[in-house]
């Protein structure tokens, strides 16, 4: 940042406490031209650097450090560690707040108390509705915790957070199996109240990213719309890529993956609608055009016949055209389903690309399409069995 000694920029002689740094910054800020980006930027950088230094020098940081977060301290499970740090707190700012309750004390408070904090009083019952901090005791009543449904996890988390967390993680890993993503389970898990914990969420997001990354280095492939939808609902990669890049840090091929994600999300979910409607229109004209050409062909081929015969030939041609089209779709559906059953996702997508250059892999990889494949496959097998039974 600023090459200069940050403390001199702030008008301070030497590194000092956070309180002094803030005071000095406030004084300088009122002196400079606050519309000048260069002056403001230099002061700002100096302030940030000096403040960071002051916080590092502090024996007892009053906010949880990065290390705490890395260790998985969720901020609600260990009241003990908060109270341990409590006695040192007044020295850290040199400014013990006389009347306001420290945030830490409030975090430990479990019962409604009289409002002596200077906050405006709001009905006490609201306090009563705050969840009690979960107690870290073993709970023998949950006999078969692994058989719990996802919906029951929140209740378990209230009683026994550790157990709930480990079940959560197992279920999450299950849903992220390398070849098959259980998007419904993922969505349900991420929607749980317990998944709103910031630290846990960060870890889940990274896990999701790695799972996607290992499979989709090629943005052309895209990934199932269902998966894109779940990721978007919970992590907003397509609408908040900048935030995601901050959270995830530098990762290889980050931009491509994000782009691929945004690409495979249905348009209407990103509020850009104008383009799709135009595409639909051209698609329709394309179809109408084919029939017009067919009709002209039949007329030119049979000059002498009556109009009725012309029409019949046209209809026949059109029917054949439609039948061929439907048969192709059905057979591709079968093949895609088979490939899916054999866990050959990549070839299936390639095939879909080849068969439907216009609609791309999105259609072919959608669950509806696979369901169609399964249906047609069953139908073909049944008819085959029937025929074998009849003639053999």
């Amino acid at each position: 940042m600023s090459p200069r000694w940050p403390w001199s920029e702030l008008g301070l002689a030497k590194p000092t406490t956070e309180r002094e740094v803030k005071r000095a910054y406030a004084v300088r800020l009122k002196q400079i031209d606050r519309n000048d980006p260069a002056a403001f930027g230099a002061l700002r950088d100096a302030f940030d650097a000096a403040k960071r230094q002051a916080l590092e020098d502090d024996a007892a940081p009053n906010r949880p450090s990065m290390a705490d977060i890395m260790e998985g301290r969720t901020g609600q499970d260990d009241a003990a560690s908060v109270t341990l740090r409590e006695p040192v707190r007044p020295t850290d700012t040199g400014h013990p707040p006389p009347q306001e309750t420290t945030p830490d004390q409030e975090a430990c408070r479990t019962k409604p108390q009289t409002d002596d904090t200077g906050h405006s009083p709001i009905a006490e019952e609201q306090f009563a509705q705050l969840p009690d901090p979960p107690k870290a005791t073993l709970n023998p009543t949950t006999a078969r915790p692994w058989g719990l449904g996802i919906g029951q996890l929140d209740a378990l988390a209230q009683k026994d957070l550790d157990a709930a967390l480990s079940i959560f993680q197992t279920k999450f890993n299950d849903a992220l199996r390398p070849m098959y993503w259980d998007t419904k389970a993922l969505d349900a898990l991420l929607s749980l109240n317990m998944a709103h914990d910031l630290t846990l969420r960060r870890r889940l997001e990274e896990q999701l990213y790695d799972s996607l990354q290992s499979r989709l280095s090629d943005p052309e492939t895209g990934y199932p719309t269902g998966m894109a939808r779940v990721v978007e609902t919970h992590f907003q990669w397509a609408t908040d890529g900048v935030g995601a890049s901050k959270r995830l840090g530098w990762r290889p091929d980050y931009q491509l993956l994000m782009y691929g994600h945004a690409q495979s999300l249905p348009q209407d979910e990103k509020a850009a609608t104008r383009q799709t409607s135009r595409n639909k229109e051209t698609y329709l004209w394309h179809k109408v055009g084919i029939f017009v050409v067919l009709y002209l062909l039949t007329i030119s081929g049979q000059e002498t016949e009556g109009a009725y015969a012309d029409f019949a030939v046209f209809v026949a041609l059109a029917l054949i055209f439609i039948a061929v089209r439907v048969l192709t779709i059905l057979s591709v559906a079968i093949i895609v389903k088979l490939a899916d059953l054999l866990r050959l996702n990549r070839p299936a997508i390639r095939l879909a690309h080849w068969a439907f250059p216009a609609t791309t892999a999105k259609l072919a990889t959608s669950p509806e399409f696979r369901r169609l494949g399964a249906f047609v496959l069953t139908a073909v097998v049944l008819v085959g069995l029937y025929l074998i039974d009849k003639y053999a």
Partner: protein
Amino acid sequence: MTQPIIGIDLGTTNSLIAVFEEGAPRLLANALGHRLTPSVVSFDDGAVLVGEAARDRQTTHPKQTAAAFKRAMGTETTFALGPKSLRAEELSSLVLRKLKDDAEAALGQTIRDVVVSVPAYFNQGQRQATMAACAMADLNAVRLVNEPTAAALAYGLQDREGESQFLVFDLGGGTFDVTVLEHFDGVMEVKASSGDAFLGGEDFSEALAKTMADKIGTPWAKLGADIQQQLRLQADVAKRHLSGKDEYEARIKIDSTHHGLTLTRTDFETACAALIKRLHRPIERCFYDTGLDTDGLDRVILVGGATRMPMIRQMVARQFRRLPEMTIDPDHAVALGAAVQAALVAHDRALDDVVMTDVSPFSVGIETATRLKNGTSIHGFFQPIIERNTPLPASRQQIFSTMSDNQTNLRIDIYQGEAPKVSDNVHLGRFDINVPKGKAGQESMFVRVTYDPSGLIEVEATSISTGKQAGIVISDNVSNLTEADIAKKLKQMQAFKMHPREDEANVTFMARIRRLYEMAAGDDRHMLQDILMAFEAALEGQDPAEIARMRGDMGETLDRIDDYYVS
């Protein structure tokens, strides 16, 4: 005489205007003596009605009335009012004109320079539309202030010496903003802002209205637009009642059948569960960007009328494990703060020791392309240069280079937003820069983005080899409209005749009787008809004292009927 220092809160549901005098902000009342002016516009025989009368006309004349148009700011959406069709900024300009007229009457001075508040999460297009609305109302918006920042200023002024980290949770009629601030030594420093420009109290009403439709037994989609609108209004009332009580008895008239339904607070909370979930995301973003966690906060402040809902307060209390504060009326805080901001811009002596720094709510960057290993190139990546939540003013630069051999022209497309694909972000402007021929990647340039607190964004590219420069300035001010265009628009808008001010109380009263008549049944209807006729007769008589007396007397009756049917 010096110009009065004015701040305006142009809200989705209600708008307010405040003046800064003698070191403190003060709200100005409208012609009816109320501080809240509903942001509703209605046309009545060519004359424009704004405020309570227009709000009552939503029931009686839905086709001539428009509300909640702030949500369409910066879009091409038009609202049909009778034969006319108006855009959101034009409707907003009518609201602004009403506020201006009222404030001028209250102060006895003309008003020109104002500070207008916008949701922190408004993008450049929405901000430009707000500025255009001001210009069309013949107001000069010297600055736009972010709503949560304004609220924080209002709170900060109460406690100038204090030192605290706090969070402003601003859930208005149509928008949601979260801002984390630090206040020390007279410095009000915004650390991070985030939000959802399409989430507000109106969505909660809508959810409740759909629950009501379910209870009646008719699917929401099958109800006509008129009944949907009626349910929405009823839901709005029910919502306010459910903030105080656990149960509310709603009476709804559909096609002359009356339905009585019981709504409980649990019904309401179930209907809004998904909306509550959406509130979490911006909060998460804010915390991530500041590196804070909930324990680092000293205070949580609630702003915006929708925060009166108990479920919101519970959610806030649970999320932050702290009792939220509402010492300033949540409807008033933003307007008061906007007036403080106006005083800061005008360098008012009373605020010499107060400084405010804000952040950019969005990232600003340019479009880039990338060549893959297999030789194909992909366009449309968004490369942020100034990341969101950077303190303003800020100036940052990055180096970019050519992608193909002998490329001589580089096009710089500037975008605002957070999406990795530029097509999902807001396009701000573009310019070209020429560079000498060379191998791919050999020619490069600096792109510098400068973003100042008044919302001005300046982008400048400098070729490294030749030193040639090119650039563009993007401002909140309506960049695509010239002075002449604005003058023309202003004239167009002034052609709309406002209802005379001295009439307003009567017009509002009549609109209220008509609305009640529409809702009432049986004997009440007859009574209302009598009241209407008596009042019309009094108006014919043209005796102001008599009319005022009747308004007072009948007002009580109307209150009673209102109590029974709606409120």
